[in-house]
């Protein structure tokens, strides 16, 4: 072997790989084994759920258990939309709330962050400190008076309490994330535009915001995930199944899986898969932005 003759190491005449290389390879193999075990740990429950959603009821409760259904029941996904529970409505409600929440958060938080990052006025820094301190307070403290407020407005059992508050600045985290990004953009951009006669809104809308696309994507993904999974809000404000979101709907379905006296656990699993797939797909395509955003908030926070 060419390598053996070139090598200065006398041991390599006996062994094709040196002990040091051997321990390195052993380490690599071990690392891969651990990672594969972890993939099973994180992946198997999801695989099991996906398989269960394609089973018939006897297959789901058979003994010994069946791992993969003999004939995948793709029809389950259609059937679940047509049972007595308004499952389709839960999804359309959630989509609507997620869209309204995300637009509100993106538009208003970027405006507020623009103000924090680019304007000088009395009270700005105090306001920013107050903004950050709201992140420390548990939601429970403001939840009860907010409920009273929405109750008095007659908004209980409507979707308004779930998205309207997000049009008021989008929350401290969103403002913080956007402000940090605005601070990285050079001030010369603003000044040049100002000299050219652009107004402040035009500077924001036509010059700065297009540069913010990556951070807007990040914020959109984080907001969509949070809004899609939100449970406490819909649980408190929504009472009738037609108004439910996916989260409360699933919980309702889970509590009473026998629809009209028939067990529907396989359909419940199908509904669970349907609640996961959009968010997982979105993450898959947007993960570059998402990871950047988490890193930004983590490192600079």
């Amino acid at each position: 072997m060419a390598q053996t003759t070139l090598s200065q190491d006398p041991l390599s005449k006996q062994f094709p790989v040196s002990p040091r290389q051997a321990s390195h390879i052993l380490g690599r193999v071990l690392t891969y084994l651990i990672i594969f075990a972890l993939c099973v740990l994180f992946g198997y429950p999801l695989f099991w759920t996906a398989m269960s959603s394609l089973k018939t009821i006897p297959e789901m409760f058979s003994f010994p258990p069946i791992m993969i259904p003999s004939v995948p029941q793709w029809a389950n996904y259609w059937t679940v939309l047509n049972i007595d529970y308004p499952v389709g409505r839960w999804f359309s409600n959630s989509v609507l709330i997620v869209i309204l929440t995300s637009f509100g958060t993106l538009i208003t938080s970027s405006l507020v962050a623009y103000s924090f990052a680019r304007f000088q006025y009395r009270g700005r820094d105090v306001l920013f400190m107050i903004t950050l301190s709201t992140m420390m307070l548990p939601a429970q403290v403001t939840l009860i008076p907010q409920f009273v407020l929405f109750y008095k407005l007659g908004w209980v059992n409507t979707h308004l309490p779930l998205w309207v508050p997000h049009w008021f600045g989008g929350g401290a985290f969103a403002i913080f994330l956007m402000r940090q990004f605005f601070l990285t953009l050079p001030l010369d951009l603003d000044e040049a535009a100002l000299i050219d006669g652009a107004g402040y809104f035009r500077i924001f809308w036509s010059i700065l915001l297009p540069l913010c696309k990556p951070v807007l994507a990040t914020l959109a993904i984080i907001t969509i995930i949070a809004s899609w999974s939100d449970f406490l809000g819909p649980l408190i404000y929504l009472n009738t199944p037609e108004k439910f979101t996916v989260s409360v709907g699933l919980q309702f379905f889970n509590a009473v899986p026998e629809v009209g006296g028939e067990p529907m656990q396989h359909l419940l699993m199908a509904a669970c898969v349907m609640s996961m797939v959009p968010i997982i797909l979105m993450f898959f395509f947007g993960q570059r932005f998402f990871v950047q955003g988490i890193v930004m908030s983590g490192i600079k926070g």
Partner: protein
Amino acid sequence: MAVAETGAPAQGATNGSATLLARIVGAQTPFQTKRAIWGYIYAAPWILGLIIFWGGPILASFYFGFTEYAVIGSPKFTGLSNYIRAFSGDELFWPSLGRTFTFAGLYIPFAVGGALVLAVLLNQKLMGTTLFRTLFFVPHLIPAVALAVVWTFLLAPRVGPVNEFLRAIGVSEPPGWLASRDSALASVTMINVWAAMGGNTMLIFLAGLQGVPQELYDAASIDGGGPLAKFRHVTLPMLTPTIFFNVVLAVIGALKVFTTAWVATQGGPSYATWFFALHIYFQAFQYFRLGYGSALAWVLAAVLLFFTWVQVRYSRRWVHYEGS
């Protein structure tokens, strides 16, 4: 801005009111005044939001804590009776607080420690790192309700796949998991750890690991340090700021644990997973004791602030900041 300061000062009759306005907004020239006013206008949604959804509710909730209030009618002032009742007359108060601490005590080391282990594994520059990272992250993306529903099935004592597996490898009496009083709390913790380990905590650790300079590892190699020594003497000290950040976030998350317990066990069996956030929810939104619920929420806020303060206070002893 240089352009602005040369602007002519306001003159004549408008001078007085203009300077007053300028002083209010903290400006010196008309240009700065105008600019400051635009600043307020763009911040207005959040200023309103702070008043309507934060400031007002915080004051109201503080007041409700001293009243009896059931949405219908108006709050009736009862002094400290809610707090007295919480501390001495509510048999679920201390147990639910204690249970929340038990949860936090189990959850935080496993979730943060597990995330660190995952991050170190992914940082080995292996093939397929992005794929593994995505897979580890997926549990974190699942809506909390779906997570709880799926795990209720997986952990079903008689027909669930977890116990099937345990029986197959020879465990004759596998635990009852969520259905048993003795193991429900541990099961809820496990579900939460499973979902959180590969999530944001891991991503933040990964970013932190990438910030550890390679020279330090090289130096450790020259000194003959093996992988464990490098982890102990290079990685861990350099990561302390990241660990600190993640622990603070984990404490906040743990004390608010709600959804998984509510969906998987409804706080049961026999109150085994009746956490403090569930107690607040039931008091406020099932029994409509809004006054008492507000008092409980303030207890939670106080506990949270106390723990955060302690962590910040003692962080200097173990958190190592490079270059300071």
